[in-house]
């Protein structure tokens, strides 16, 4: 009997204990549930308040802007997947537009084209004779070139041809986009590159690259600057920068002009090669006006050769790493300057002599 009673008591005690634990657990559950409901209602209230949502979104976007401005930020890669989707669509728009404009220009200019054809036939006959003479000269040049190890201008650069995809949206969103990118070997994380037009005139520099497109900062943009020199023997070194007040007139500003120099209107400026981004000798433009009203701060305006609004194709100059490395490891003095006066003025001009050569045949 006693044993039976003790067993029942033990069972009752155990049940009591279990129920106590359960009630405690229930209390916890209820407590957690209540706190969850409270938090959810607070969150809901916060997100129902449009002002708070807007402030949060604004802060988030500002943080995004700041992070994307940091050099080498991974956020700059955000546009890469976008480019895969958007660029083909944009290319379709561009090709449709080009076809339409070609069609209308063919109709509108039909008579003119016929007249021009006749003139061109006569010109071709004349040019054919000159080509024959030129061919002989070319052979002679090649012989001399190999004999004296003359280096062609920009032969250490791969030149990638590209078409302009998009132009500026307004005066604050004014970057150009072209259709070559990392797939074509242009990677802005390795450095910026010079951009020129078909006549080898400076257009701007590469800003950022996506998979098959890249952004170019045009030389009229106020963020652009390049070291330049007057294209004559011992020409003065100056700084060409974009200027917000001159941009709409298609002009740049020239500063850091030495005090003893007077820039004559019509003088040509070319890149000096200082800074390492732009190879020396790329034509930039001609001096439009010279302002010497402040002797400590001489200024001039420059009209670039390139017309950014009309440009359709550009060429990106990517340094050839192997050749550059070779030159760095074994600086040779055997390259004879054919035409560039910068050698005589003591500038580094390992890559700027003679006519331009297309190293890979990618350019026109």
């Amino acid at each position: 009997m006693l044993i039976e009673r003790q067993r029942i008591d033990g069972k009752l005690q155990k049940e009591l204990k279990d129920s106590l634990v359960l009630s405690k657990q229930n209390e916890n559950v209820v407590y957690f549930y209540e706190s969850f409901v409270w938090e959810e209602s607070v969150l809901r209230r916060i997100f129902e308040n449009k002002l708070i949502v807007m402030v949060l979104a604004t802060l988030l976007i500002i943080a995004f802007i700041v992070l994307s401005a940091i050099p080498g930020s991974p956020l700059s890669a955000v546009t890469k997947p976008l480019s895969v989707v958007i660029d083909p669509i944009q290319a379709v728009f561009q090709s449709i537009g080009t076809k339409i404009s070609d069609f209308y220009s063919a109709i509108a200019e039909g008579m003119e084209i016929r007249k021009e054809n006749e003139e061109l036939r006569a010109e071709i006959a004349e040019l054919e004779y000159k080509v024959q003479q030129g061919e002989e000269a070319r052979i002679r040049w090649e012989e001399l070139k190999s004999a004296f190890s003359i280096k062609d201008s920009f032969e250490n650069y791969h030149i990638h041809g590209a078409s302009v995809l998009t132009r500026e949206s307004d005066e604050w969103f004014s970057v150009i986009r072209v259709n070559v990118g990392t797939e074509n070997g242009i990677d802005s994380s390795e450095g910026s590159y010079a951009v020129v037009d078909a006549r080898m005139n400076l257009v701007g520099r590469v800003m950022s690259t996506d998979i098959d497109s890249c952004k170019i900062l045009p030389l009229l943009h106020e963020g652009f600057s390049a070291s330049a020199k007057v294209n004559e023997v011992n020409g003065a070194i100056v700084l060409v920068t974009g200027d917000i007040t001159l941009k709409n007139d298609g002009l740049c500003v020239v500063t850091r002009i030495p005090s003893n120099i007077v820039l004559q209107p019509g003088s040509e400026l070319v890149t000096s090669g200082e800074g390492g981004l732009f190879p020396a000798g790329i034509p930039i433009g001609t001096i439009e006006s010279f302002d010497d009203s402040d002797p400590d701060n001489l200024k001039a305006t420059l009209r670039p050769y390139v017309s950014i609004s009309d440009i359709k194709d550009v060429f990106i100059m990517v340094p050839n790493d192997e050749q550059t490395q070779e030159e760095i490891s074994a600086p040779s003095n055997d390259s004879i300057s054919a035409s560039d006066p910068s050698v005589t003025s003591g500038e580094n001009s390992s890559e700027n002599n003679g006519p331009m050569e297309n190293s890979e045949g990618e350019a026109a």
Partner: protein
Amino acid sequence: MRKHERARQIIIYALYITSVCCLQVTFSHVFRLFGRTCDLMLVFVVLAGYLFGTKDGVVVGGIVGMFRDYFSGPVITGLDQKPVAVLGIGLLVFIYVGLLSSVLFRKRFRRKLSLGLLQVAIVTLFYCVLGHIVSWLYLSMSGNSVSYHSLNYIAFRSVLPQILVNLLAAVPILFLLRFLGPYKKGTRSGSSETYVMEEQSWQSV
């Protein structure tokens, strides 16, 4: 909103946004008048916000702003003193453009078609003036350039021509959005009262 209505809304917005953005950046020289390029993206966001309310304005503004950043993002001087193309400024600006155009004079204008043009003019004025102020402040602080456009230039060669070309661009976009827009009846479904209530919460802000 029913499924097919939602699908129509998404498809038409996607079509219009892609077309407007691509047209502006590809053929900017075609849409040039008085020395200014029609800002089709801005006009589209303003009219989407004006005609269809805050939600549409903000969402369309965000997407168009993202496109703007992608195609021709603004350039600033980075921490290493080199120019860098930043992302997000277009996104932020156009979200606020969409918001502003949906709440500004909401009660007075009552989404009338003709007054949409006035809304475009007002928002363009805000956009240009603020753009010049921010640009001037940035250049002054960065010390890159101390010269800026004269007030005369800003008024008569920048803001006024921009408003005029945007108004011209607004006419076809206004009709497209109203009669071939993302909503069947040219307006968003739902009672106008709820709508006004919704907008009032913004105006109180």
